[in-house]
């Protein structure tokens, strides 16, 4: 549960999963579970509706997070 979500877009992190067949099989086993599929649908439409632009990047990784509130 902790690692699986981070493996979902390994390519975008510059990792070729073909080099790691066992890890890929492990990923596929988990991915095939119906409960996991349901979980991955949670909020995904809402997430896709918001583009990652400079403003979003600023909010997530920029100085906004360190402002005093």
């Amino acid at each position: 549960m902790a690692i699986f979500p981070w493996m979902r877009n390994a390519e975008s992190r510059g990792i070729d999963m073909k080099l790691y067949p066992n890890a890929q099989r492990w990923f596929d086993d988990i991915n095939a579970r119906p409960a996991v599929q349901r979980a991955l649908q949670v909020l995904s439409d809402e997430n896709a509706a918001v583009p990652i632009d400079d403003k979003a990047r600023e909010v997530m990784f920029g100085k906004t997070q360190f402002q005093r509130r």
Partner: protein
Amino acid sequence: MIDVYSWATPNGHKVHIMLEETGLKHRIHGVNIRTGDQFKPEFLKISPNKPHPRHRRPRRARRQTAVAVRVGRDPALPRIQVRQIPARRPARALALPAVADVADGRSRADVRPGQSFPPLRQGKNRLRDRALHQRGQPAHQCARQAPGRGALRCGKRLHPSPTWRSSRGCATPKAAAST
């Protein structure tokens, strides 16, 4: 009912997967971290340190529980059900080895989400009694007193030691497992 404040991110999905797999009742509240929902006052009230995901449990649940297990009484066939771990320290410390047993494959998880605990024993040590009971050692065998109030209480000691148990003439969990 568990209130989940999260978003469709890898860290959020960890929680969503756990909730879907266990079948625990929950409500999802979206916190859009791309538009800055995580800095809104209403979210900071729940999570002053601003990470997500965050879950909020009702007060009673917070006192009793988190997520997972119960060991059956038959020591030869340890059965563990996915139930709730006591949230309080002593009882929690005693319940966690059972979780580790499942994780390491020493016992089998018998998943039946959504079931409630048996009624609590009376008294302020009820959570500890229950945790010991769930490890296969009925609490009332650990002391000569009536089950409930006095069971397992030994001065101010939190966890009764094996020597303490044998001095009272009752079986240790290990001995119980071998019979």
